[in-house]
């Protein structure tokens, strides 16, 4: 299904980079010539507390902002979003549109039989990716888990190109970035894990690309066709 607009809801836990992921994805979409808008929604910044962010990408100017109540795509950054209900909505897929997509960072299936049935009734595809494992394997840090979530949604929906993601990552991590104290601390933490900034950028892009390829292959094999129309449309 080709959409004029793709609504992506990212449900994660504080410190996982869900906010950064939505911003990077939207930045990449803008670089691809699409319209995009991204915003986070969280309470007091706290690690492991529920944190959500939203990215809307489309072929026309988007005004809608705030919590995404009716998403096409939901990305679950952490199993606890499902297993411990660390979600802004219960169940976590509340509001998902028909023919939508759920991407879950987990090595093992997490959905109950009831959840599976309800998602199936709505023709929602479910894709599991061991995002944290991939991040550890390629980047050597679980802080790059958000990169696998960016890669997954891009790989399946082609909502942004890898080239644009490369540029967006350079913009986000290649220069000094001032946000909240929590974000600044995490930025410092991840920079310390890499000898050089170039290495951080390189490893992050590799992580994105690996997830992108795995997800794209899965989408092809399972005939999952959910994408945004071309910018010129």
């Amino acid at each position: 299904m080709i959409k004029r607009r793709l609504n992506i809801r990212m449900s994660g836990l504080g410190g996982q980079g869900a906010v950064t992921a939505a911003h990077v994805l939207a930045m990449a979409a803008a670089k691809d010539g699409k319209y995009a808008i991204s915003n986070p929604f969280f309470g007091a910044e706290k690690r492991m507390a529920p944190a959500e962010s939203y990215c809307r990408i489309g072929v026309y100017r988007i005004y809608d902002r705030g919590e995404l109540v009716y998403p096409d795509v939901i990305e679950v950054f952490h199993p606890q979003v499902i297993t411990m209900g660390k979600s802004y909505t219960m169940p976590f897929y509340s509001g998902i549109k028909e023919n939508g997509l759920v991407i879950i960072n987990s090595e093992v299936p997490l959905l109950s039989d009831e959840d599976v049935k309800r998602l199936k009734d709505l023709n929602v595809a479910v894709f599991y990716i061991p995002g944290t494992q991939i991040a550890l394997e390629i980047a050597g840090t679980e802080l790059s888990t958000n990169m696998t979530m960016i890669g997954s949604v891009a790989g399946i929906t082609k909502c942004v190109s890898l080239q644009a993601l490369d540029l967006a990552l350079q913009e986000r991590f290649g220069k000094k970035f001032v946000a909240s104290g929590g974000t600044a601390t995490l930025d410092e933490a991840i920079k310390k894990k890499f000898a050089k900034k170039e290495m951080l950028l390189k490893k992050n892009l590799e992580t994105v690309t690996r997830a992108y390829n795995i997800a794209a292959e899965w989408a092809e094999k399972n005939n999952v066709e959910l994408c945004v129309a071309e910018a010129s449309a």
Partner: protein
Amino acid sequence: MATPSIIGQKNKKGQVYTDPWYMLHEAPRTPSFFTGSEVIKEAIRRASVDVMIAYPITPQSEAAALIGELFAEGYVGDYFRGESEFAVMSECAGAAFGGARVFTTTAGPGTMRAMENFPMWAGSRLPIQMIVTCRGINSPLSIQPDTLEMAYLLQTGMLVWHAETAQDFYDWILKGYMVAEEPDVHLPLALCCDGFFVTHTKDMVELTPADMCLPPYDPYRSPVPCMDMECPPVRMMRDPFVMKSNYISYATHASWQQEVWAAVERSRKHTIAWLDGLIDAENVESDVVIVASGTAVSQGREAVAMLADEGIDVGLVKVKTIRPWPGEEIREATKHAKHIVIPEFNIIGWLAREVKATIPNNERVHAGPHVAGGMTMPPEIIVGEIKSLLGMKVETLATRGS
């Protein structure tokens, strides 16, 4: 001898003092994908601000910190952190009394804590600009957007504008100084937005060149002498003519209040020129017209598009300034409407109250939908209310998806 113009000269950062009208209406623009907080920084970079005073409170902290970066880079004359919001706003007054162009940012409980200062700013005719990134003010705590605090600002004598997007923010910060510093206005401006929905949202914004900046504030354009507490000509505390209980003091005070509100009215003509009208009206020949300010305008635009897909024609009025209040403009824009729908991000519906007090046949006003405490307003909710008003069947939103 004619005074040489500062236009065309460079500041210490090499920026050229540029004619503001040229800078904001004709100079080339560069599209940039920024959060609202980053946009505040970029506007202040070009605003020739002398003093910025900061105090942390979500969701304005990021903008305040970013302006600290600007100070470190040398774009802001002075920058420091106050002891509380009350202290910040008092210190802003001191800086403005001293002839500085002053900027500050606050939100929610911070706005409330500092409230005593706002009528004082207006009465002292200080053209301070304060960004208000609205958030919940009540208990239980919320840091999410809720525009209730704006209702408290409406009677302070400040100019109150409500930005919809980061683009509005960028332009209006710069234009705001131009309006507020006019000698026949010379009032503080509360430039409000819905926190998070603007401050933390990344959106495409068109920026003016970074090497152009506003001419500096000229304190000699102030219409009143500086009101010093101890020194002539006013000696407010030592020689307090307004603190004596007699007819002259009451009359002085009353006429000064009238003058402050007259100055708000006089800002109208400047604001209309700079903001291209106090409202934007689209398709207001329709039977149904949405009247909104801030993020509610954006959600209204989405609702209008969704209803158009179903063949339902709805108009939209974007209210840009709440003070001065565009009463005449709203009367004109809503004269054909059978239903006037006013979505708001607060529980009391202060915008609907203002509209009801303004237009004839105000039973046409439908105050709502309302969300509060940081809730989002999906356009589907506005669509649902409009369909209900038109007697159409509405799908229950809660049954969708899950």
